[in-house]
């Protein structure tokens, strides 16, 4: 296993509870948590892979007891301190807040529409040549772990490690989270949609023709 967030295929969770389309947020603080997370992201002190890793690095006991937006807030607080944006004393209330040199970067209301519209595309030019084409058979890395940084961020779920699949499509070349989450550069490389028969992943698949498709970077894959 990688970390507690990597829960695909886990047994023991209860039923899924559908809900209507009219509910966007369940509490006012959920709204603020989402907006605060997006706004602090524009300060430029971390990227999306760093922020995912921050949530994944929550202690398993915290990850499981926190609701969704509590995880977000905890991740933001941890990153703000780790990146020197706020001090532990400011966070705990022991010290009065001091003005930040980053204040000029703070997102202002008139900038919001433009920032959200731009988003954060992950495709980049790359000199890594695609090794696979649609239809090719591939096998995923045996260990669902970051091969560069011990305990680091990766996007290969444990349930799909060491599995045989076939390439459905090449998405182009995208930023590699395993590198980008650790300030080691974007290291773009080919990204593929890879289909795995359910029977390759599970001992008791529900249906012989079912499949699971994952988006996987070239360095996660080998030729069989």
């Amino acid at each position, binding site marked *: 296993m990688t970390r507690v967030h990597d829960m695909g295929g886990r047994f023991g969770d209860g039923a899924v509870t559908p809900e209507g389309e009219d509910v966007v947020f369940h509490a006012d603080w959920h709204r*603020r948590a989402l907006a605060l997370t997006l706004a602090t992201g524009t300060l430029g002190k971390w990227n999306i892979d760093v922020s995912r890793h921050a949530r994944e690095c929550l202690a398993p006991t915290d990850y499981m007891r926190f609701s969704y937006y509590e995880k977000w807030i905890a991740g933001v607080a941890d990153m703000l301190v780790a990146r020197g944006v706020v001090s*532990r004393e400011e966070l705990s209330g022991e010290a009065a807040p001091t003005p930040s040199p980053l204040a000029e970067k703070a997102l202002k209301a008139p900038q919001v529409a433009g920032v959200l519209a731009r988003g954060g595309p992950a495709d980049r030019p790359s000199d890594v040549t695609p090794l696979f084409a649609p239809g090719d058979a591939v096998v995923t890395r045996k260990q669902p772990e970051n091969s560069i940084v011990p305990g680091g961020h990766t996007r290969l779920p444990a349930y799909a490690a060491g599995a045989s699949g076939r390439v459905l499509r090449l998405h182009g070349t995208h930023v590699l989270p395993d590198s980008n989450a650790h300030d080691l550069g974007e290291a773009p490389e080919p990204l593929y949609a890879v289909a795995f028969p359910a029977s390759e*992943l599970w001992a008791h698949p529900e249906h012989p023709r079912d499949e699971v498709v994952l988006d996987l970077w070239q360095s996660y894959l080998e030729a069989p």
Partner: protein
Amino acid sequence: MPHDHSDHDHPHALLPPEPALRVKALETLLTAKGLIDPAALDEIIDTYENRIGPRNGAEVVARAWSDPDFRTALLEDATAVVAEMGFFGRQGEHMVAVENTDEVHNIVVCTLCSCYPWPLLGIPPGWYKSDAYRARVVREPRKVLAEFGVDLPEETAVRVWDSTAEVRYLVIPQRPAGSDGMDVAALADLVTRDSMIGTGLAKAP
């Protein structure tokens, strides 16, 4: 600095334990430091609560049902096609549309976090972000579908898309029987959010 998040030193524990107070404390601190503008937070909230939601995706699906050339273009390059309709930006930078047929039923999940096509569907529903959905839908999609009241024919294969990268998936549900002759606006009313995630079917007219 590869180890910038120590496993044993979590500053978030310094915030008050109650979630609403944690958020309030953090917002107050960051505002005092000049790092966030509460009016910008209001603007973000208004965007996702009132302006961007699943009716965007429904408009795309209804056009795909009505216009074969549009459908072909959408399946070929969804990012470009939906951008022309004004749907682009955060969490929709790289879009792929997948089509349900009698042979294949598509379902979207993000087992590792909560990746979801925001410009087309808005903020994901609670169940999409739940441990139960993330854990189960890759292993037992048909049991999960049953919890949504969907029972697929035996001859239909399920293809579950786990959104492990920055590519976001939109399911084009099957056009319901009896919808011939309906215009795009009427068709869009048949397209539910869940049908575009794959946990539901389009409504019957």
